[in-house]
Structures are given as structure tokens and as C-alpha cells.
């Protein structure tokens, strides 16, 4: 096995995350700390893949130890997400980073891609850890603590592929029947989700576009400063001024670079995460609707007297409970999600504004310093006003 190491760019200790994590749930009650770092490339005869190191530190009793270190690959994350969705169909499970990025990088092992993915995976696990329900999920615990072989054998235990397929078919079938009467609050929720999805997608596109335009601007600016240096070679009396302008332009160029880095660290990942969230929300609505549709179809069947009424009534009772559970879970999680969303969006845009302010302040200082150096000249220069 060939192991290549990539250097981690984030603090390694989960405990150091206490001040960094901006989660709204009482942070002082946090008892599970997770980090995702050290991507490593593994080469086998069949394939090449990347694993990430996951360190968990906890004070919870149900964990056998207080510290765990495991390696997981992207596939394992997908498995975990699937299990969580299965167990909690109407909870809002956090998004995973995409499998590939359609345009731009296709290379799976590009450094930027890996780093972006690592950060997103880190966020994914932490969001689960902070979720009041999901944090106690058994599969989650196994994901964080099991050795590789233990996880493999546990994965095989789940409902078989065929039964999972069967569920999917039933789900699709029931969704085709449509929802007869979605409760008012879920109608509102759905309408919000639709508009939100539209807007967040636009914001994502706009933000990406801004980054691209800034990159193009940066590329042109890089040429701009040197032209002034070139000019200063043929102008004896303007050397200082020209070199000064060149230096200012170069400094502003660097400031642009810094601002772009800030943008790609704060705003872009957050907006993108919420683009993925909007898809998840639509999935959650569908699943809630499916559960209700199951109930509705049984109720319909009862009214048409198609099968044994006692059996049906019993089934309907169970389904009514199921629907009520699902609805309540979603309602609670929805409020929680909205609160998080507001905080995250507010934070991301405030950071972006801060980056831009800082950028302009840097440039301002540069040019003001140049200006004062040019205008505080000895008297014989300023009395040359003859034209």
C-alpha cells in the first residue's frame, strides 16, 4: 500500500475547536468533539481512494473510551448518511459534499478538491454531533469508533439490497399518488423551501461568478504594476513616482488575492452547503408526504371496504402514530434548521463584508502613503509650476 500524506491545514485537536464551532445548541453542554483531517491516498490493485482520519473525543458514558481514531473513506460517509435517513426519514440530515464537481475540476485527487471535501466532511460530522437526536444514533457511534473490519461487517448486517430496493419502489409509487391534503404548516414549509432553493442557488451562482471575475481582475492587475516599472527606466525625473505607483498596484494585487482566499473560505462553502441543504429539504418533504400518503391510501381503502376493516383500522392507527411522529420530528427539526440557517447565512455574509472592508482599507492605506510621499516634497519641486 502506498501512502501519500497531505499536510493538514486545520488545528488537529478537537478540544481546540471549542471556540471555533458556531453552533447554537448550548456549547457548554457539548460532550462530543470530532475532527476530520489527514487525507491519505491508498492504492490497491483494484482502485485508488482517499481516507480521512477521524478523531473523536468524548465524555459520554455509552462510549467505551474517551478518545477514538479511525480512518474512513467517502463511501463510508455515504453509508452513514443513508442509515441516518433510514432511521429518521423526516429529520433534516446534513449534506455531504458532492461526489464530483461537474464543471471545473474533474480530477478526484486534486489538492483543492480534497481540502474542500475534507472541510465539508468535518462539518457534516459536527452537524450530526450537534443534532439533539442524531447525535445518539447507533450507526453514528459505530462510524466514529469501529475499526475498519468491524465497520465492514456491521455494514453487511443492514436490510438487504433487495428489501431496500423494495422500499424505494413503494416510496416512489406512493409519491406518484400525490398528497391529498398536506397540513397548512407543511404547505407553508414547502413553499418556503421552493423559494429558498431558488434563491440560494442563485446566490451560489452569483458568488461563484464574483470569485471568477475577481480572479480575472487579479490576473490583469498582475501585469499593470510592472508596466510602470518599465516606464520608469526611460524617465529620470519620474522614477520615484512611477515606482511608487507600481508598488501600490502590486500591494493592491496581493490584497485582492487575500480577499479571494477569504471569500472561498467563508462565503462560498456556506452558500454551497445550503444549496445542498435545499435539495435535502425537498427530499425530507417528499418522505413526510410519502408517510402521509401511506396513511391516506389505507384510509381510502377502508372507505371503499376493500379489505378486512379491523385489520385496516389497526394499521391505520399505527400509521396515524407514524404520521404524527414524523410531523412533529420535522416541525422541531425545521425550527432548529431555520435558526441555524439564519445564523450561518448572517455569519457568512458578515464575514464577506468584513473581508471587503479589510481589502479596501489595505488599498486605501497603500495609496494614501504613496500620496503623502509625493506631496510632502521639498520646496524646489513644487515651485516648478510653469505649464
Amino acid at each position, binding site marked *: 500500500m502506498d501512502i501519500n500524506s497531505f499536510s493538514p491545514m486545520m488545528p488537529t485537536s478537537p478540544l481546540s475547536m471549542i471556540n471555533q464551532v458556531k453552533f447554537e445548541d448550548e456549547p457548554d453542554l457539548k460532550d462530543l468533539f470530532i475532527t476530520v483531517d489527514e487525507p491519505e491516498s491508498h492504492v490497491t490493485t483494484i482502485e485508488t481512494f482517499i481516507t480521512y482520519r477521524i478523531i473523536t473525543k468524548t465524555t459520554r458514558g455509552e462510549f467505551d473510551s474517551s478518545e477514538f481514531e479511525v480512518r474512513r473513506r467517502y463511501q463510508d460517509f455515504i453509508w452513514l448518511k443513508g442509515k441516518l435517513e433510514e432511521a429518521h426519514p423526516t429529520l433534516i440530515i446534513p449534506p455531504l459534499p458532492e461526489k464530483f464537481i461537474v464543471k471545473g475540476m474533474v480530477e478526484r485527487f486534486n489538492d483543492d478538491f480534497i481540502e474542500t471535501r475534507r472541510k465539508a466532511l468535518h462539518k457534516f460530522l459536527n452537524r450530526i454531533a450537534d443534532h439533539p437526536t442524531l447525535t445518539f444514533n447507533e450507526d453514528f457511534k459505530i462510524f466514529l469508533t469501529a475499526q475498519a473490519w468491524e465497520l465492514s461487517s456491521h455494514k453487511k448486517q443492514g436490510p438487504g439490497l433487495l428489501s431496500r430496493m423494495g422500499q424505494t419502489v413503494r416510496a416512489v409509487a406512493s409519491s406518484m399518488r400525490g398528497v391529498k391534503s398536506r397540513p397548512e404548516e407543511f404547505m407553508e414549509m414547502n413553499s418556503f423551501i421552493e423559494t429558498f432553493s431558488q434563491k440560494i442557488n442563485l446566490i451560489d451562482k452569483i458568488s461563484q461568478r464574483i470569485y471568477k471575475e475577481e480572479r480575472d481582475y487579479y490576473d490583469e492587475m498582475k501585469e499593470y504594476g510592472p508596466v510602470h516599472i518599465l516606464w520608469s527606466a526611460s524617465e529620470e*525625473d519620474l522614477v520615484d513616482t512611477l515606482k511608487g505607483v507600481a508598488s501600490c498596484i502590486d500591494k493592491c494585487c496581493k490584497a485582492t488575492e487575500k480577499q479571494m482566499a477569504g471569500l472561498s473560505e467563508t462565503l462560498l462553502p456556506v452558500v454551497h452547503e445550503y444549496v445542498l441543504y435545499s435539495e435535502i429539504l425537498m427530499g425530507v418533504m417528499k418522505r413526510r408526504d410519502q408517510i402521509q400518503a401511506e396513511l391516506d391510501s389505507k384510509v381510502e381503502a377502508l372507505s371503499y371496504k376493500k379489505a378486512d376493516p379491523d385489520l385496516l383500522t389497526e394499521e391505520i392507527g399505527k400509521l396515524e402514530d407514524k404520521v404524527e411522529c414524523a410531523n412533529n420530528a420535522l416541525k422541531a427539526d425545521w425550527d432548529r434548521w431555520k435558526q441555524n440557517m439564519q445564523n450561518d447565512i448572517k455569519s457568512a455574509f458578515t464575514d464577506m463584508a468584513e473581508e*471587503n472592508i479589510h481589502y479596501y482599507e489595505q488599498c486605501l492605506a497603500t*495609496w494614501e502613503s504613496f500620496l503623502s510621499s509625493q506631496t510632502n516634497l521639498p520646496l524646489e519641486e513644487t515651485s516648478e509650476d510653469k505649464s
Partner: protein
Amino acid sequence: MTENNFSLKKIEISVSEAEKRTGRNAMNMQETYTAYLIETRSVENIDGQSVLTDSLWRRYSEFELLRNYLLVYYPHIVVPPLPEKRAEFVWHKLSADNMDPDFVERRRIGLENFLLRVSSHPILCRDKIFYLFLTQEGNWKETVNETGFQLKADSRLKALNATFRVKNPDKRFTDLKHYSDELQSIISHLLRVRARVADRLYGVYKVHGNYGRVFSEWSAIEKEMGDGLQSAGHHMDVYASSIDDILEDEEHYADQLKEYLFYTEALRAVCRKHELMQYDLEMAAQDLASKKQQCEELATGTVRTFSLKGMTTKLFGQETPEQREARIKVLEEQISEGEQYLKSKNLEGREFLKNAWADIERFKEQKNHDLKEALISYAVMQISMCKKGIQVWTNAKECFSKM
């Protein structure tokens, strides 16, 4: 052509308006052109009160005529350039259309600048044709053409020939020619890069305007975040539209650089005149030397140089002493004329060098001062842009933090 009461008074010249006109051209076809109003005020009283003395309308082609006249009559002067005929170094937003109001406005300023340059030049300001340009609306074109200046102009071909063949041009002028080539090249390059940078910057600002629209739409579904989003969106719109003024200002900076770009052509014109005069001088000297040689050979009877006479003599027999005597006489006359001619050419050349170099020194000082000022004004523009940016983003940040 001089008019001395003109330079003694303090005058203010302005090109105050531009107007679209239609008329018929020389071929009796309808055409649209822009006319510019030139107003001249003389500062009569001690307290600086100015009185409008003249006002007339001129079009760009008349400015060109004036400048061509000045080029012919003052070849030792670095004649100020006119603003560009067509918009060059444009970035995408600016149209290259001569009728575009922004272009017309910038041209108006450029023409005013041209007149100010001429009127503040110690020699050019005294020219009568220039005075009439400012004061005599009708018939001015005829008056200029009557000077016959077009005929006095050196032919391009002659000048080109001289440039290639001159043997000993003054080193200062050779250096000046190189300098003006370099300056032209570097300013062109700078203007091109600047245009591209402007284009990109425009893109960055304008895309932010899209945030405004989407925030506004999003705010409709948000209860707590709504107000913050809405007002932040407004600031995004302000940010996006601020680039228009910023780049308009920068265009004036570009025009200042362009003036010196065009000045390089005027510098080269002076160099060319020197080369032409030097070449004529060298040719005259060469001609004189050859005649002297011929004379000497005839007198002493030795034939070292090839001459047609010598050839025919060989073929058709020797010439008589009388014939030879006659020829020597002619040559001696020619030599005497030639020596006079050479003397006056030498004098002319030295005068030209002296006057031209004086104007070039004046020009250099002006250039250093103006370019420095332009670069400083560029810094001022950048500072203003940064301050605006800080303002907008601070406002936006406040809105975001209230969400």
C-alpha cells in the same frame, strides 16, 4: 505671422459647448458632425473680471487645419496634439462611436486643452492665424489656405529619405527620437492594460448588483432576516452602480496619458525636420566638395574623378584650352554660390538646433510636471474608490449583522 497685442492681454479660452449639426459637405451630401463653441474672454481689469470678447463655433476638421498650419510654420516647436479622432483603447462599456455623448464630452475637454496649450506657448500664442481661429468665424479657412502652407510643407518622401541617409545628425535629436519611440510604446501598453483592468473591475462590481435583486426576492419569505436582507441588497445595488462614475473619472486620467502619447508624434516631427535640414546641409557640402575637386582637376589637368566631359573628351578628342577655361569659370561661380549657400544653411541649422532644443527643454519640464500630476491624480482616484468601498461594505455589514 504675428499679432502682438494678443499675448500681452491675459485671455481665457474655453470650449464650452458641443452641438450636433447637419450640413452639406463638399460633395453636396448630407452629413452629421459636431460643432464646438469657443469662447474667449479677456481679463481686462486689475480685479480679474473677465469680459467675453469672442465666441464662435468650430468643428474638429478646422482644428486639424490649424494644427497642420502650425506644424508647417513652426517646425522647431513641439506642437501640442489634438485629442484622438476616434476612440481607441476602449474597454467594453465605452462605445467607439464618435457621436457618443461621453466621447463628445471628452473631446470637448481635449480641444479646450489644445487651445490652452497653444495660447500658453510663448511663441505659438502670437500667431495671427491662431488669433483669427479664435476670432474670425467666417472665411478663416480661406485665410489659412491663402498662406499656401500646404505647399511649404516638406514632402513625406523627402523626409523619409533624409532620415535614412543622414550621416551626422545631432546626437541629442537621435536620442530624443529613441525616447519618443519608447514613450509611445510604453504609454500604449499601459493604456491597453488599463483598459483590460477597467473591464474586469466593471465585471466584479456589476455582478454584485445581482445580489441586490436576489436578496430582495429572498427577503419576502423571511420573517426575521427579511429587513436585513432587503437593506443589504440595496447597498449591493449602490456598490454595483458606483463603478460607472469611478471608471468615468479614470477615463480622464487615460486622456491625460493619451495627450502625451500623441505628443510623441510632435517630438518626432521636430527630429525629422532636423534630419532633413542636416541632410540638405550634408548634400550641399558634398556637392561643393565635388565641384571643388572637379575644378582642381581641370586646372591641374589631372583627371581623378569620373566626368561625362572627361569621357566625351576621350572619345571625341581633347577640348581646347578656351573651353577648359570656360568650364573652370563656371565651376568657380558655382563654388562661390555653393559656399554662400552652405554658409546660410549652416546658420539656419544652428538656429534651428538652438530654438528647437529650447522648446524641447520647455516641453520636458511640462511633461514631467503634467505626468507627475496625472499619476498623483490617479492615486487620488484610487483613494476615493477605496473610501466608497469601505462605506458601502460597512453599511452592508451592519445590515447583515442585524439579520
